[in-house]
């Protein structure tokens, strides 16, 4: 089975993602224990999050604010909601039920616009509490061969928002892009630090396939244990290929939960979901309904800064004014690193937006912290020097690196580095020397071989150590040919 990034001909991959996001509150969802990573086991616990007899939950106001912020950022309708108990036994569950939201979640609907302009719908985003952590001892640390297990309840009760997407995702790449975008949105709201590798962002995938053109969805499998974007992408491709192979050989896809095995690069069954677990949801009697006032919802929404999609649009609009669209990957990089204000600020000061975007995405992005501290006026000055031909592209990049390293004004740095571009006379002299050294190539160029121009240009740039103005050289070569 090949891990192909596109399904076999005639097949369509359908993916919906469930993302659990830990909220950046100071305390847990239902008690005042610190919400902190890395503490000694069972030191951030109290009667409530240990589920001791007689304990009762009390809802964290900040967690609600964050949930509203997430809903606003996703374009959800923020509604009155209630909490439910989801009942099942598991050692990491102090009460052997989880307080969650069932049929009346706080956020309903919504959408996420990805960098490439595609849109993934959101079904809901609700509040729930996290479980404790188990470690398995013996048998290599895996659950199935363990001799016994140890439970730490520090994480039990940490606030989570679970975001459920519509099954709108059609490829592994789009799945990864969705998670990336969601993460950027969550970080932008301040609700989460979005660190997938640290477990503050967890992804489960629901994957099915269908014949292209089919209106009905195929049977889906849930895939768990996706600890990175790479795992997510690989798992989507593997699972889709697996299901296609089953169907093409006349079999039936069994609805089940599968575990992604990163080392072996495959999914394996965990349990059958044909018999859905009976969670016996009922309204949580120890909590009362949540009905955020419209004014509060509006205030939270107003307090959100522009979201990543909007920020990309703002830069893209500036760039596209010159007639062609902005490169998507540059937009993603610049917004992802928080350099869009730099680009827009430079444009405000007269810099060419397209060039500013390119320099920010390709060069400034190498030192993002320094880039974020860069003055838009100085950056604009640099870009303008390059646009005007006073600095070559190579020289411009060097000056930028110097600015990032130690600050300073671009004109001063250029002068210090001896970077004025070559004057016309010196440029012509350099061209003369190169043409004299490469008569064969010159002859081919004269006869119309346009490709050899690059070679000649390169030689002139080499000879002048990058100080020649590339455009001027090209223009001069062209003029000489015509004469």
């Amino acid at each position, binding site marked *: 089975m090949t891990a192909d990034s596109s399904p076999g001909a005639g097949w369509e991959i359908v993916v919906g993602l469930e993302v659990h996001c830990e909220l950046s*509150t*100071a*305390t847990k969802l239902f*008690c*005042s*224990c*610190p919400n902190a990573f890395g503490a*000694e*086991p*069972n*030191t*951030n*616990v*109290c*009667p409530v999050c*240990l589920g001791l007899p007689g304990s009762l939950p*009390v*809802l*964290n*106001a*900040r*967690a*609600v604010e964050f949930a509203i912020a997430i809903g606003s950022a996703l374009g959800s309708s923020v509604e009155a909601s*209630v909490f439910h108990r989801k009942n*099942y*036994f*598991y*050692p*990491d*569950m102090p009460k052997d039920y989880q307080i969650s939201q069932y049929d009346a979640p706080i956020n309903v609907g919504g959408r996420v616009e990805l960098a490439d302009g595609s849109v993934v719908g959101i079904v809901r985003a609700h509040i729930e509490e996290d*479980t404790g952590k*188990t*470690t*398995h001892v013996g048998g290599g640390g895996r*659950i*199935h061969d*363990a*001799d*016994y*297990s*140890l*439970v*730490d*309840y520090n994480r039990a009760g940490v606030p989570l928002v679970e975001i459920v997407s519509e099954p709108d995702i059609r490829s592994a790449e789009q799945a990864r892009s969705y998670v990336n975008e969601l993460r950027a949105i969550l970080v932008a709201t301040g609700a989460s630090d979005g660190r997938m590798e640290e477990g503050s962002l967890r992804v489960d995938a629901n994957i099915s396939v269908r014949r292209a053109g089919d209106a009905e969805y195929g049977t889906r499998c849930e895939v*768990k244990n996706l600890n990175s974007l790479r795992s997510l992408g690989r798992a989507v491709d593997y699972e889709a290929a697996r299901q296609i192979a089953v169907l093409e050989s006349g079999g039936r896809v069994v609805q089940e*939960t599968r*575990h992604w095995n990163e080392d072996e690069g495959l999914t394996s069954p*965990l*349990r059958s979901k044909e018999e859905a*677990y*009976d*969670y*016996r949801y009922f309204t949580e*009697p120890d*909590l*009362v*309904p*949540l*009905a*955020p006032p419209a004014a509060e919802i509006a205030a939270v929404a107003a307090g959100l800064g522009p979201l990543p999609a909007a920020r990309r649009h703002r830069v893209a609009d500036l760039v596209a004014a010159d007639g062609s669209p902005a490169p998507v990957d540059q937009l993603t990089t610049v917004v992802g690193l928080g350099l869009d204000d730099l680009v827009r600020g430079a444009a405000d000061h007269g810099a060419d937006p397209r060039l500013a975007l390119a320099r920010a995405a390709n060069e400034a992005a190498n030192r993002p912290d320094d880039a974020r501290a860069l003055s838009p006026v100085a950056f604009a000055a640099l870009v303008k020097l390059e646009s005007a031909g006073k600095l070559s592209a190579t020289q411009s990049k060097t000056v930028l690196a110097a600015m990032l390293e130690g600050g300073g004004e671009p004109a001063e740095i250029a002068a210090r580095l001896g970077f004025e571009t070559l004057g016309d006379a010196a440029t012509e002299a350099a061209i003369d020397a190169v043409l004299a050294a490469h008569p064969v190539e010159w002859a081919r160029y004269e006869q119309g071989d346009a490709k050899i121009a690059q070679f000649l240009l390169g030689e002139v740039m080499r000879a002048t150590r990058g100080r020649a103005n590339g455009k001027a050289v090209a223009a001069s070569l062209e003029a000489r040919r015509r004469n």
Partner: protein
Amino acid sequence: MPAVTESFSRDDVVYVARLARLDLEPGEVDLYAAQLASILDHVAAVTGLDTTDVPPTAHPLELENVLRPDTPGMTLDRDEVLAQAPLAESGRFRVPPILGEAP
């Protein structure tokens, strides 16, 4: 709403006992089935009542929006907590092997 007429069968007892993690002896299953069927028959009368347009009461109170500030408070002393544990090791609660993932 039509009254529910199924009674509490032996299979029902086995099912709920498993869900509720209660190990029952075979003899107990029959005994509980009989008792639960009799209780259920009595209370099942409510299932036949007309409750159209009657909303459920989840809480006797009309409270909403009970919240607390996001301020850290007292945690328990781990030794005091683990002293009550049936079995503890390395600061954690120790349990026999967990055979599968959470449902």
